[in-house]
């Protein structure tokens, strides 16, 4: 069974705050949900599917209680930053199967105001693999740096090329009133920012912010009669990638499995895609993901991202909202990939609008490239 043509995104909302010490995580989710339902022209009473991640323990039940919802479909899978891209695909499948009619996907986080040290706080945990890792001082930045160093060695990728990704992303952020960092930066600025874990500099890394967002998914049929132009969910795919029992190639990502699958399921080719939202926890994440997705050959990411190709007006504009590098990154930013792609497809992006945007690709990465991570891909169309 294919989900193609069965479900659509009817509403989205991006919480405007990047710093919210005066709000709770649940409040951010409720406000985001209200925004997305209003966008769709629906109310909380219409919602019978609830999706979230990043809430501790059985948090989705608490969330349902807090919202006074009794959903008939629940999904709080937690696969890191790709969770909400994954939820969008799961919601489409649940709707296609008739398990729910209106799915509300929520995210809210205060990782910034709670002073959660995401990138450099060290690791901890009881997973089997971690008994062979935590003693060596892995950090999120360091784990991605392992991939960056290997990519540079194997393919001659340079720090300048990685920096270019941060520069283009900042240019996009300068056109997004909600973006946290909007002042232009240069390649030199990236290269002279401090090394956090070589070869990654501070400006190769995403920020940490508070924030949240929401997505409303319903049947394609119902979406036609709602307030906004429906955005069709054409396909979804997922994967994960890990140490492969000691034999992994560090320059590949989970995107290599989920990306081509999502394109094939939507019956579209790379060249058909008008814009892409590519998880940008770090500049290297973008480069390796573009290669793994197949937008360029493996090893050619460094030259692919140059000459304006990934900027507005280029062949494949990416992260037009400013991404995690410049707009917001409340720990897991998958939801914003889907929100921005939806807005682009609806032609609502003002100065940063991609011309004639009909097909968008979203790819979320959750976890760490250098150790283990998840990938979720989505093809959206208008």
């Amino acid at each position, binding site marked *: 069974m294919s989900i193609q043509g069965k479900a659509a995104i009817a509403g989205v909302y991006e919480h405007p705050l990047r710093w919210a010490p005066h709000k709770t995580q649940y409040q951010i989710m409720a406000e985001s949900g209200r925004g997305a339902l209003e966008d769709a022209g629906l109310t909380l009473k219409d919602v019978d599917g609830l999706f979230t991640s990043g809430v501790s323990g059985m948090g989705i039940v608490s969330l349902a209680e807090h919202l006074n919802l009794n959903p008939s479909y629940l999904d709080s899978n937690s696969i890191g930053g790709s969770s909400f891209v994954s939820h969008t695909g799961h919601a489409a499948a649940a709707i296609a199967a008739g398990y729910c009619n209106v799915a509300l996907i929520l995210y809210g986080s205060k990782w910034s105001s709670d002073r959660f040290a995401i990138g*450099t706080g*060290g690791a901890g945990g009881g997973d089997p693999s971690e*008994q*062979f890792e935590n003693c060596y001082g892995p950090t999120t930045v360091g784990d991605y*740096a392992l991939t960056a*160093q290997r990519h540079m060695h194997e393919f001659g990728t340079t720090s300048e090329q990685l920096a270019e990704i941060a520069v283009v992303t900042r240019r996009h952020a300068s056109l997004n009133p909600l973006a946290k960092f909007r002042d232009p930066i240069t390649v030199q600025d990236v290269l002279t920012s401090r090394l956090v874990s070589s070869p990654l500099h501070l400006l190769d890394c995403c920020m940490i912010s508070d924030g949240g967002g929401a997505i409303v998914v319903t049947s394609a049929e119902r979406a036609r009669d709602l307030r906004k132009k429906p955005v069709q969910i054409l396909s979804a795919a997922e994967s994960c990638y890990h140490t492969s029992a000691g034999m992994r190639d*560090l320059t590949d990502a989970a995107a290599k499995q989920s990306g081509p699958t999502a394109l094939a399921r939507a019956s579209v080719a790379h060249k058909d895609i008008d814009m892409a939202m590519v998880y940008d926890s770090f500049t290297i994440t973008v480069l390796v993901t573009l290669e793994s997705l197949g937008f360029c050959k493996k090893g050619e990411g460094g030259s692919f991202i140059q000459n304006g190709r990934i900027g507005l007006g280029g062949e494949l504009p990416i992260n037009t909202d400013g991404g995690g590098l410049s707009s917001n990154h409340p720990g897991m930013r998958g939801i914003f990939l889907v929100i921005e792609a939806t807005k682009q497809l609806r032609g609502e992006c003002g100065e940063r609008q991609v011309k004639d945007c009909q097909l968008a690709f979203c790819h979320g990465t959750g976890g760490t490239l250098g*150790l283990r991570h998840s990938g979720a891909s989505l093809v959206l169309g208008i």
Partner: protein
Amino acid sequence: MAEEKKYKKPLPRIDEENKPFWEACARHELYVQKCRSCGKLFYYARGFCPEDLSSDLEWVKCSGKGTVYTFTVTRQNQSAGFRDSLPYVMAYVELEEGVRMLTNIVGCKPDEVKIGMPVEVTFEDATPEISIPLFQPTAK
């Protein structure tokens, strides 16, 4: 007065699957596992073969030699133990036996580490029961 230096970095949690590995490390020996059923060699230690789920495994003693597959010089880590060791080198070392393991490179300056550099195992005695395998440049 000589002060006992307390080991502050996280220690592995010994369980039924990884116990023989860490017991060998305590003897300053490095072992990987091999499946007798399918022949696959693998790392990290577990109680079954990740290729065919067979429990018929053997422990293979490593030469302790390998090369640096990739590395990073970590300059920022707020957690106890590592905060005091900055900058330190985290690396994947490819063992002669063919598997890659995460480790630290010690015994040289961080900026001397290069991909492809030959290294050999050394052990840091963290506690009387636990020694952590690290790698240092191969003695010439």
